[in-house]
């Protein structure tokens, strides 16, 4: 596949790396804002912000690991095809 369309393969790789790079910050941001909003709503500052920050970081890393595993498998498959 990669040998047929090298340009497309590179863009796919860039897209995969970009989505991996975006995964962690977006999870952290979503977690932080949820925690911050809930803290303001319930008056529990800063505990829910901290809790949701930890949850956001954890989910980000989990997604990162999954993506990395998938990328590793795909690059191994590419190597086999060649």
């Amino acid at each position: 596949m990669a040998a047929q369309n090298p340009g497309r393969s590179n863009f796919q790789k860039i897209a995969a790396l970009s989505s991996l790079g975006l995964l962690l910050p977006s999870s952290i941001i979503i977690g932080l804002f949820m925690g911050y909003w809930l803290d303001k709503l319930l008056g529990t500052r800063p505990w829910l912000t901290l809790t949701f920050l930890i949850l956001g970081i954890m989910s980000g890393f989990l997604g990162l690991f999954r993506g990395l595993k998938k990328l590793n498998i795909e690059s191994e498959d590419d190597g086999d095809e060649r």
Partner: protein
Amino acid sequence: MTATSADPLEERILARIPWEILALAVLLALGAGFLFDFRTGLFVLAGGAVATAGFIGMQSGLSRVLLKPKSKALRSGLGLFGLRLVLLLLIFSIIILTYPGKLPAFVAGFSTVIPVFLMEAVRAISRTRAWKS
């Protein structure tokens, strides 16, 4: 990502992203500094700097992990991501506990990574279209 594994285009895009994140954070910090106060601008800038450092760290870490054999890759990957997790947690916890009011400013700076990635994605799509036609 590295000289041995990547082509110049990929290398160029990945090298450009940290500078774009930082440039956008500086612009946002200037805006926040004028609109709110100097300290808010500083927090926006700090958020952008953390996002830039995080991207550079992840880029070099990922390339190292992907180039290693599978058994070693898992161990070094776990170490690298563990360290990142602790660092991020530490930075955000310090801000939450010491300057809770400035958290949105810091997160705004940290979020500059999202428009930059979207911009690069749009560029890549338009380039793919040109390549197809």
